[in-house]
């Protein structure tokens, strides 16, 4: 069984535990053993801490990386923002000796040291490169062919080498046997970072644009690999409903969609806890059975 140090981040354990529950259910099926990083903190959030102070950003990130280094397994990251922080901080620290020495001198006060031993992997990378899509297909127990899914990779995955993580997300969703719906603006940001500048602009000029395109493409649901995108796509729909508009697009984490394909029941993974009801998805799946 392949072992990984699990980096949960902030939003998933404290606001979206259904994504964590689904991951912990599907992992043994895929021969993955998850080890919690004891004492991990916020990655820290790149949109805020990096802007406030670059040195604080890299030092807190290095502390988290040092915890994983001491566990000697690669890090499996469940959040796009955490992946960006940890991946970029590790790359910087590995290639800039002066910076590494400076950060390690700060970490020495905490009795920790960054070595870079543990590689940072987004879970889409683990699923495609380490587990393999064939292993994923072998575990599918529910036919999802009637489900029309809009894939929202999120900005960070496009920052990976050759945009490979965005491609992996799509490959995984396709491997699950769903119909992937093209809506034309897959690359557009969900609007989450724009919320820091203007809530109105973020919801009406970014998220609504995306939601409208997905609605027009007749998708049954949206699949994401990032808790911030999940939050934005759900909350924007709820805000737009308050304005009298009709938005009922369920948003699912990739882990939840995989769990449904593997035959786990909606209640087991907490689909009933979503802000936008997932009943249309569940009804469609039950219709297929």
């Amino acid at each position, binding site marked *: 069984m392949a072992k990984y140090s699990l980096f949960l981040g902030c939003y998933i*354990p404290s606001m979206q535990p259904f994504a964590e529950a689904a991951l912990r259910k599907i992992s043994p099926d895929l021969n993955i053993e998850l080890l919690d990083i004891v004492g991990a903190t916020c990655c820290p959030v790149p949109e805020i801490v990096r802007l406030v102070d670059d040195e604080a950003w890299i*030092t807190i990130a290095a502390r988290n990386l040092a915890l994983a280094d001491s566990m000697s397994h690669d890090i499996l990251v469940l959040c796009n923002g955490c992946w960006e922080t940890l991946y970029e901080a590790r790359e910087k620290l590995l290639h800039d000796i002066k910076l590494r020495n400076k950060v390690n001198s700060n970490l020495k006060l905490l009795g920790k040291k960054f070595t870079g031993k543990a590689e940072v992997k987004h879970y889409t990378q683990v699923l495609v490169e380490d587990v393999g899509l064939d292993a994923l297909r072998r575990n599918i127990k529910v036919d999802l062919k009637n489900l029309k899914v809009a894939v929202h990779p999120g900005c960070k995955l496009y920052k990976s080498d050759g945009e490979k993580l965005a491609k992996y997300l799509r490959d995984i969703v396709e491997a699950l046997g769903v119909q992937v719906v093209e809506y034309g603006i897959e690359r557009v940001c969900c609007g989450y970072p724009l919320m820091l500048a203007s809530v109105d602009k973020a919801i009406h000029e970014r998220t609504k644009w995306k939601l409208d395109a997905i609605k027009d493409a007749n998708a049954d649901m949206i699949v994401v690999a990032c808790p911030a995108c999940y939050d934005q796509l759900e909350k924007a729909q709820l805000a737009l409903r308050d304005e009298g508009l009709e938005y009922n697009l369920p948003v699912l984490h990739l882990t939840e969609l995989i769990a449904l394909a593997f035959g786990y029941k909606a209640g087991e993974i907490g689909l009933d806890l979503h802000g936008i009801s997932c009943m249309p998805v569940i009804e469609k799946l039950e219709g297929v059975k």
Partner: protein
Amino acid sequence: MSEKELKLYPLRKRIIGLPQPFKPPTSGILKYGHVPRLSGFLQRTRSKLGLSKAPPTAYQVKEAVEEVQNIIRTLKLDIKFAWDWKKKRFQY
């Protein structure tokens, strides 16, 4: 703006304190080591889903929160964004 940036751009207006939208997440990191607080409701929800009430991160490990606070103190960020350690909130 860091000290290095101040030397590079001496005429740029120095911002004291954090912009309003940055305050809640930064305050969360300083208080809990994570951006959001893990509420009692969410702890019960986690249990219902078969998860531990709180993951063994800074939500459970107090030393982890203290270590983040030490990093902030070492880098003198608490002064930069006017954090009141006693009241656990921004001064302005």
